[in-house]
């Protein structure tokens, strides 16, 4: 898109500093009241980030078309047909609260966890339900008990809906008894990241600004879970609006890694990963914009899948960056992910970017892969996603995984994706730009928090908006809103957002070339194992580096899975291996992932999570 003021971008783009005055101007555009201390703090922080992302200005992009949509789709229309509206009561419900309301904590303890139900995989639970060995009510209660027992220490959940989950479980049992289960997973409970709208259940996105908001509608993913009969245990913790890699940016306090409660569980979906790793839920839904499913999976020893962009509906997913976001499964096994992926995936007419074509069976692929034969599969090791900046133990586990795949018959090729070195910078321009616009709707007018400015009599809507956005958003959210406002503003668009879209094209081309030579690409999922809580909180750039290996897939819209690769020798904490496939070839993730998982299980002699410390009675 051309600029309003042509020619001004070149002269300004050399500068990689945001002055205090500019931050004030941008905050004004974004309707956030920043005080002097915040301005003093933000200006140098943003300059450091900008210095880093500005590196992409050197990439030659004259003949490169910009990518704003990961997959080439056109002409998605709905027919001009009237659909039912919300009732006026629903439309006007959830009006802003002016005081702070406490988020309901987990359910009261109900005694010790029942048997080993919570340690079983979703596939095993589904089999047990089908065989009549247990009931959905029994296993839903077992998970609620487990939550009551350990979530005080883990804090994976922001909201637990014991009553709703048990009611759904009872309905599932009735269907089973009548011989007409709604799906293979009917009655297997699940946890949902708090970024997906759930009718009648609070949805905060980990932000104060949405405190007290109860959506009058279900996200498509949630509606499909309900249709398939999965009782929803509750909503899981996350970095505010999914901005972060540690879940420390949640306005409701961090989630703790079940492997070591002093460490981060990854982010933004640390709550979903920790819930699954701590056996509070057999399944969870996460969302992945730059690695928020895969990186928490790696650092908690769980499996996480980011489907092909458009493979799972985004309707009802509170957008962080619309062109990158994708919801997906968080589980303990590859097969469980495939089962859940098939429940939530598929075309949705409410999401214009949803893919309208049938996919190969994912469950079949996972079962085939579990047989352990990878003969003829070409595994591409990406040169740029490894080496410097990666922890030795993480690299060792990665190499071990590659060796196991070779042993299973795979062929290894080295592939280079030179544009990947710009992926982080590209991501931190596109994401904040889209986010700054998405988050504009939080204005204290219709829902969520409302803060009146101090010392102002009869404040105007505008003043209430500014005060609320200052009080309601956390530091990381403000940083990214300001950065995104900057990247889109007149005179800077070409140099930043426009250039980032061109580099995005180059990254997609690198993937295309790599997939000519390899069926899947592999790398470590995250450069390190879980770091200590608070360790990187004041250093945004260090935090951003966690997503180095996961971001390229989001930029190109290709699917990826993180599978536990073992424990790093130096700290005994879990690491993950990432497998990436071409768009629409999600089945390859499951085939290769399941084969690797089978080889590793054999090596370990059981699930990796069996090596995690017991949380029973864990005190905090």
């Amino acid at each position, binding site marked *: *898109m*051309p600029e309003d003021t042509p020619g001004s971008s070149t002269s300004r783009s050399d500068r990689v500093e945001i002055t205090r005055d500019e931050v004030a101007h941008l905050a004004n*555009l974004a*309707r956030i009241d920043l005080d002097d201390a915040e301005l003093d703090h933000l200006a140098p922080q943003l300059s450091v980030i900008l210095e880093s992302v500005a590196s992409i200005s050197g990439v030659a992009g004259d003949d490169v078309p910009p990518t*704003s*949509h990961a997959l080439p*789709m*056109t*002409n*998605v*229309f*709905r027919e*001009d*047909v*009237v*659909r*039912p*509206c*919300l009732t*006026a009561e629903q*439309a006007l419900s959830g009006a802003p609260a002016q005081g702070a309301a406490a988020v309901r904590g987990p359910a009261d303890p109900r005694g010790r966890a029942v048997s080993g139900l919570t340690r079983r995989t979703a596939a095993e639970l589904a089999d047990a339900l089908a065989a009549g060995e247990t009931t959905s009510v029994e296993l839903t209660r077992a998970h609620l008990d487990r939550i009551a027992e350990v979530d005080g220490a883990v804090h994976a959940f922001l909201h637990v809906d014991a009553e709703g989950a048990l009611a759904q479980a009872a309905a599932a049992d009735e269907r089973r008894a009548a011989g007409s289960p709604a799906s293979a997973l009917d009655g297997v409970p699940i946890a949902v990241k708090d970024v*997906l*709208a759930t009718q009648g259940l609070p*949805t905060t*996105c980990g932000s104060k600004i*949405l405190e007290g*908001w109860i*959506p*009058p*509608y279900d*996200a498509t993913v949630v509606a499909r879970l309900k249709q398939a009969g999965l009782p929803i245990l509750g909503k899981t913790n996350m970095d505010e609006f999914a901005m972060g890699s540690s879940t420390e940016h949640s306005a409701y306090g961090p989630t703790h890694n079940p492997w070591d409660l002093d460490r981060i569980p990854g982010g933004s979906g640390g709550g979903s990963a920790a819930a699954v790793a701590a056996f509070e839920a057999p399944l969870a839904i996460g969302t992945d914009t730059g690695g928020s499913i895969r990186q928490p999976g790696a650092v908690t020893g769980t499996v996480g899948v980011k489907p092909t962009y458009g493979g799972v509906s*985004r*309707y*009802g997913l*509170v957008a962080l*960056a*619309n*062109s990158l976001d994708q919801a997906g499964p968080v589980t303990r096994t590859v097969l469980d992910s495939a089962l859940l992926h098939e429940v939530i995936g598929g075309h949705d*007419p*409410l*999401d*214009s*970017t949803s893919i309208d074509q049938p996919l190969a069976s994912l469950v079949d692929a996972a079962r085939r892969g579990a047989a352990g034969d990878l003969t003829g599969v070409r595994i591409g090791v990406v040169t740029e996603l490894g080496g410097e900046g990666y922890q030795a133990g993480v690299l060792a586990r990665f190499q071990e995984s590659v060796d196991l795949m070779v042993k299973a018959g795979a062929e290894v090729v080295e592939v280079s994706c030179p544009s990947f070195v710009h992926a982080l910078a590209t991501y931190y321009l596109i994401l904040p730009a*889209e986010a*700054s*616009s998405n988050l*504009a*709707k*939080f*204005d204290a*007018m*219709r829902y969520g928090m409302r803060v009146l400015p101090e010392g102002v009599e009869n404040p105007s*809507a*505008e003043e209430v*908006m500014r005060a609320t956005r200052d009080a309601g958003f956390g530091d990381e959210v403000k940083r990214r809103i300001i950065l995104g406002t900057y990247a*889109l*503003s*007149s005179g800077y*668009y070409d140099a930043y*957002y426009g250039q980032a879209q061109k580099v995005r094209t180059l990254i997609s081309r690198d993937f295309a070339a790599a997939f000519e030579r390899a069926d899947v690409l592999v790398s470590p999922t995250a450069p390190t194992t879980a770091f200590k809580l608070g360790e990187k909180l004041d250093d945004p750039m260090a935090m951003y580096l966690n997503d180095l290996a996961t971001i390229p897939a989001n930029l190109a819209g290709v699917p990826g899975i993180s599978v536990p690769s073992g424990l790093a020798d130096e700290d005994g904490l879990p690491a993950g291996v990432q497998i990436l496939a071409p768009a629409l070839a999600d089945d390859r993730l499951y085939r290769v992932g399941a084969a690797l998982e089978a080889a590793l299980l054999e090596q370990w002699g059981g699930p990796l999570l069996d090596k995690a410390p017991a949380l029973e009675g864990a005190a905090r």
Partner: protein
Amino acid sequence: MSADVLVPFDDVLERFDPALGLEVHVELNTASKMFCGCPTEFGAEPNTQVCPTCLGLPGAMPVVNRKAVESAIRIGLALNCEIAEWCRFARKNYFYPDMPKNFQTSQYDEPIAFNGFMDVEVDGQAFRVEIERAHMEEDTGKSLHVGGATGRIHGADYSLVDYNRAGIPLIEIVTRPIVGAGEKAPEIAKAYVAQLRDLIVALGVSDARMDQGSIRADVNLSLSPRGAGTLGTRTETKNVNSLRSVERAVRYEMSRHAGVLEEGRPILQETRHWHEDTGITTSGREKSDAEDYRYFPEPDLVPVAPSREWVEELRGTLPENPTQKRARLQAEWGFSDLEMRDTVGAGALGLVEETIAAGASPQAARKWWLSDMARRANEAGVELTALAVTPLDVARVQTLVDEGKINDKLARQVFDGLLAGEGTPDEIVEARGLAIVSDDGALGTAVDNAIAANPDVADKIRDGKVAAAGALIGAVMKEMRGQADAGRVRELILEKLT
């Protein structure tokens, strides 16, 4: 209220050349909204035609209405535009309390239609208005400011927002700067909007009611020193919601700009508000660096790439070209050039056409709309189309006249009844007792009474001064409260006295 120095219109033209620009928003009449399935009916209870998408609830997403795209393409084709082979929606980011997402989903530098024109007729002469673009976007909610003195946002005690309008599809049609119009600038502006409205009506894509806001015009104006050939700083006048106001607003802004420039002051690039009641504009918000819309492609929508087959199929559905249509109608109706021009000028072409189609003669249709109805609309300060009288009503009233049930004078009372919402023409004739008395007995008595009351007049008629009958007819009509056939009364008087 206004301290504006106004230069008389003729003096403005001696020293300045005006440049006009018109941005017209057309609300489409699709059954559902631009990006969601909510209905679009006007006047529903507040906040009953809303869903997560048009309320901008977190997580909700848009899906483009195919019919709205079709309407946009048809409007583009009717305006002789090129239709984009590939275009996108973009977000226009700015905060406003009645805008649910605090960005408007619109189109930026990739409009669906561009490079068109419309030939506008003023005083029988054609003037080409070039169309820069026509693009698709969504409407905002509607704020109601309660309390305070002005009903405007400033000074209001509180504001209410109705989101029913949020997400209704709009097509914004933007002209290139219209230069060289000179003294005709105000008329050209009005004629352009009137003709555009007729086109929209003919396309059937909008209710096209300016009074309900389904067509809204923003008038851009600038002046440059006469003959300089440059463009001056422009103002954008909003809230111009009638054809008459378009003309008046242009005239006012020309006089005001000239006043400012003559005093050696610069014109502020700003939004101005038109006040229908006082006929002036006042300053709105200043457009400056503070406005930075940060447009970028809407990532929740995929590009629109109309196939050429689709475009040609839609071209096949276009109504007759308005200029050719006018020539055809003028020949069919037998109107003189002047009659036709007046009809078009009054914005009555469509109404007259529909009235004729409903059975009235062309002259009768023209007579009612251009005399009676035009006067009433003018008095009420509304458009002809906004009157509570339809072409069907006018045709029925004329039929009643033709059948001798009422006369022209009584017909006007029927129109009074229609405007007062008293029912159909026939119901009003019945309820108001307007039917002409054709019973000779009752008329005979009235004639006898008139003769008895005016013996000297009667004598004159008996003496052969037939012209004096008028006085007796008047007396009879008065007694009959107008409900008599004046011709029959005359016959009876002459029968009795000659």
